[in-house]
C-alpha cells in the first residue's frame, strides 16, 4: 500500500465520521437529505479506494503483497504500519494442491460429477445409485490417503469432562460456554482426525495456466 493512498483513505474516513456526527447536531434535520447524500458519496469514494488498493496488491499475480518482502521493507521504512503476525504461505501452490485433491476425489469417486449434477429431476433410487458410486470410490481413496480415527472414542450422546488443557482444535464447545475448565458436557458428534497423511503430491506446483485449472480432463476415445 502506498503512502498517498493511505492518506487519502484516512481523509475519506474522517469526512464520513464528521458527516455522520453532524446528524446528531440539533437543528441539522432539514439538511438530512443533503447530509445523507454527502455521506453516501464519501462512502463510495472510500469503497473505490479500497478496491484500488486490492487490485494494486494483486497486480503481481503470483506474489501477494505480504509475501513481497521488498515492498514490505520500504513500507516499514516510511510509515509505521501494522505488520502481519504470520505470513500466509503461497496460495497458488496450496490452491493447486487442493484442486488436485478435488481431482482425485473425482477420479476415484466421481465427487465433482455428483456435486455438479442436477439432483432435482432424479428419484431417490437413482440418487442412491450415484451415492453408492461416490461412497465406494471416495471411501477407498480416503482410507488409502489418510489414517482416520474419531476424536472421541466413546459413543455419541455420552458425557464428557474436558480438562483445563483440552485442545480446542479437537473439541468445539457449543451451548452455554462460560466459566472455568474442566467443562462437563455431552458429546454431540464424535469428530474425525487423521493420524497419518499419505497424499500424492504435484510434480510441478506451478500450473501451466492459472486461469484454467483442470480438475478432471475431458476423455476422448480414439478408434
Amino acid at each position, binding site marked *: 500500500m502506498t503512502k498517498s493512498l493511505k492518506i487519502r483513505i484516512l481523509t475519506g474516513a474522517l469526512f464520513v465520521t464528521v458527516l455522520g456526527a453532524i446528524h446528531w447536531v440539533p437543528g441539522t434535520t432539514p439538511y438530512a437529505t443533503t447530509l445523507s447524500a454527502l455521506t453516501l458519496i464519501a462512502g463510495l469514494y472510500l469503497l473505490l479506494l479500497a478496491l484500488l488498493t486490492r487490485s494494486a496488491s494483486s497486480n503481481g499475480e503470483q506474489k501477494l503483497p505480504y509475501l513481497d518482502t521488498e515492498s514490505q521493507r520500504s513500507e516499514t521504512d516510511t510509515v509505521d504500519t501494522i505488520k502481519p503476525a504470520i505470513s500466509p504461505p503461497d496460495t497458488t501452490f496450496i490452491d493447486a494442491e487442493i484442486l488436485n485433491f478435488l481431482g482425485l476425489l473425482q477420479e476415484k469417486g466421481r465427487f465433482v460429477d455428483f456435486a455438479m*449434477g442436477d439432483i432435482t429431476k432424479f428419484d431417490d433410487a437413482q440418487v442412491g445409485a450415484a451415492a453408492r458410486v461416490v461412497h*465406494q470410490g471416495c471411501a477407498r481413496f480416503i482410507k488409502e490417503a489418510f489414517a482416520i480415527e474419531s476424536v472421541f472414542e466413546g459413543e455419541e450422546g455420552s458425557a464428557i469432562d474436558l480438562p483445563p488443557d483440552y485442545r480446542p482444535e479437537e473439541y468445539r464447545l457449543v451451548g452455554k460456554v462460560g466459566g472455568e475448565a474442566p467443562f462437563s458436557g455431552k458429546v454431540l458428534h464424535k469428530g474425525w482426525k487423521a493420524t497419518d497423511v499419505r497424499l500424492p503430491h504435484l510434480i510441478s506446483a506451478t500450473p501451466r495456466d492459472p486461469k484454467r485449472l483442470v480438475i478432471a480432463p475431458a476423455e476422448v476415445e480414439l478408434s
Partner: protein
Amino acid sequence: MDKVFSLGIDLGTSNSAAAMSSEGEDSPSICENTQILGSNLVGAHRTLASALYIPHSTEFAAGSIQLPWSRDSEDQIIGNFARDHGAQVPERLVTSAKSWLCNPHIDRKAATLPWNSTITETRVSPFETSQRLLRHVKESVCYSASRENPDWNWESGHIILTVPASFDEVARSLTHEAAEEAGLGRVTLLEEPQAAFYAWLAHCGNSWRRQVGAGDSVLVCDVGGGTADFSLISVSEEAGSLTLERISVGEHILLGGDNMDLALAYVVRSQLEADGKSLDAWQYLSLIHGARSAKERLFADPSLEDAPIAIPSRGSGLFAGAITTRLSRDTLQQITVEGFLPLTSISDQPAERTSVGLQEFGLAYESDPVLSKHLARFLTRSLTNVRSNPGLCKRLSPHLSDDDTFLRPTAVLFNGGVFDAAPLRERVLQLLSSWSDGRPVRELESAQRDLAVARGAAYYGASQLSGEGIRIKAGTARSYYIGLEASMPAIPGFKPPVKALCVVPQGMEEGSETRLASQEFGLLTGQTVGFRFFSSSVRAGDKVGHVLDDAERDLKETSRLEINLPPLEGRPPGDVVPVHLQGLITELGTLELWMHHTRSNQKWKVEFKVRTE
C-alpha cells in the same frame, strides 16, 4: 565394501515390493515405492504394480510425468497408475512380464510386448521390462533411503531378489542378468515360497520351534494375483536341533486371485444383462474392481449376506447412468470357494496340456481353473520326487507309507493376498484333511501376506550377513541334463530317441560344483555348436553322469545351449577338442556350465540360448 543392510525385492507378476533390514534392526521394514500416480502427480505406495505403460508422445504435458530423482521427463510410467490407466489403453500396457520371462516359446530378449499390440514402435522385451521394473525399485529405494540418511549407499547392501520356485534355470539367469543390467549389482536369488517361510520365521522369532516339529511337512501355498506357486518344506531333527529342507517345488501355474475377480465380474455382468442393463468395456473394468471390493468385504465380515457393487456411468451424468447391483454370499461361495477350491479327490488332477494343432499363441494360461486339482498334482509329483531319492525317503520315512499316492502336508503356510480371505484358507485346510482321511492339517499363522515375500527376503539376507539364524536347505530345485543324439541305425519313419546325461543333480547347493570326468566330449572348434538342455523337478535321485534313454518322454526341455570355441592356437578350425563338462552353482544361486579342455587348463563357458520356434 562392507555390507551393512540387506534389501529384499519381490518382483511379482502383478505387484512388487521391497523391504530392508539394517544392522541392529529386529525385523525388516517395508520400503515405500515412489511412483507416478497420475498426470503431474507423484506419491508412494507399499506396493508397485508390475506394470509398464508406454505413453504416446503428446499424451501427457511436458514435465508432468517426472520422477523426483530424475532430471528429465520419463518416456514410460511404471506402477499403479500405469496399470489403471493402461487398462483403458491396452496396446501400450505391458503386464505379467514375469510370466513371459519364463515362457520357453518366445525369445525373451525380443521386443514382443505388449503382446498382439498393433503399435509397434513402443514394443519392449520381457527381459527389458523386468530390467526397467527393477531399476525403478532401486531408484525409489535409493531416493527414500538417501533422504533419510545422506550417507546411505546402495553398494553397502546385500540384495536378495525373489523368483518363483517354478522358474527354471533360463528364467533365473535372465532375471539375474536383468538385475545386473538394471544397476542392482550382483543379486542373490531366493525362491518366493522360501522367502514367505523366512517371513514366517522372522514373524515368530524363537517360538517357531514350538509351532513345528520333526516330521512336519509344511506346504507353502502362495497364490498371488496372477500365479500360484507351491513348495514343500520338511522339518526334521539332526543332532538335537531342527533342520528345514525344501523337498519339492511346483510348476508355473498361471492362476490366481485375478481369475477369481474376473469370474465374479463375469457372473455379475450376466445377471445385469438378464435385467436388461448392458455395460460397456470401461464399465466392465470398474465392475471387476467393484466385484473385488465386494468380495473382500464379504470375506472380511461373515455377518453380511451381500455387498453392494456400484458401477459409474462413463460420462459425467452420474444420476442418470450409475448402475448398482449386489454380490450375494451364495454367488461368492459358488464362484470362489466351490469354483476354484472344490473338494475334489486326490486323483482328480488337471489334464496334461496336450498340444493341439492350432492354438492361439500367448501366455500359457491354465485351461483348468480348479486350484484343488493343481494342488493334488503338486502333492503327487512331490511324492514321486521324494521316492526317487533314498536320502529324501530316509528323511521322511517315519511319515511315509508304501501305499501313499501323494505327500501329505501336516501344516500349511498361506501366502499371497488371496488368502486374506479366511474362508479360502479354511477350504484349503479342509481339502488337505479330506485327502488324509480326515486327519487335521494345521495352519501356520502368517501376516501381511502381500508383503511377506519381500520381508522374508530381507530377513534371509540379514541372516546371511550376520551368519546367524536358521537356513532352509534347498539347493537347485531341479536336475539338469544335456541331450545326446543316440547312435543307432536309422529306421525310416522312426525318430531315434534323444538320450540325456545328468550334469547337475537336484539339491546342488550354492557355491558347489560337479565335474564329469568320466565322460569325454569331442567339441568342434571354429563354429557354434548347440546342445539340447533338459530339466526335471521330480527326479531327485539322479546323480551326475546318470543317462536317461528318452529325454523327450521323461524330461522337460528348457533351452538350447550354445558354445563357440575359437580354434586352439596353431590348429585349423574344425579341429575336435576333447573336453570335460563342469556344472557350477554360484554363490548367487545361478547355474553355469563350463567345458574344460582335458589336456590343458583352458575352459569355456556354455551359454543358455532361448529356444526360438
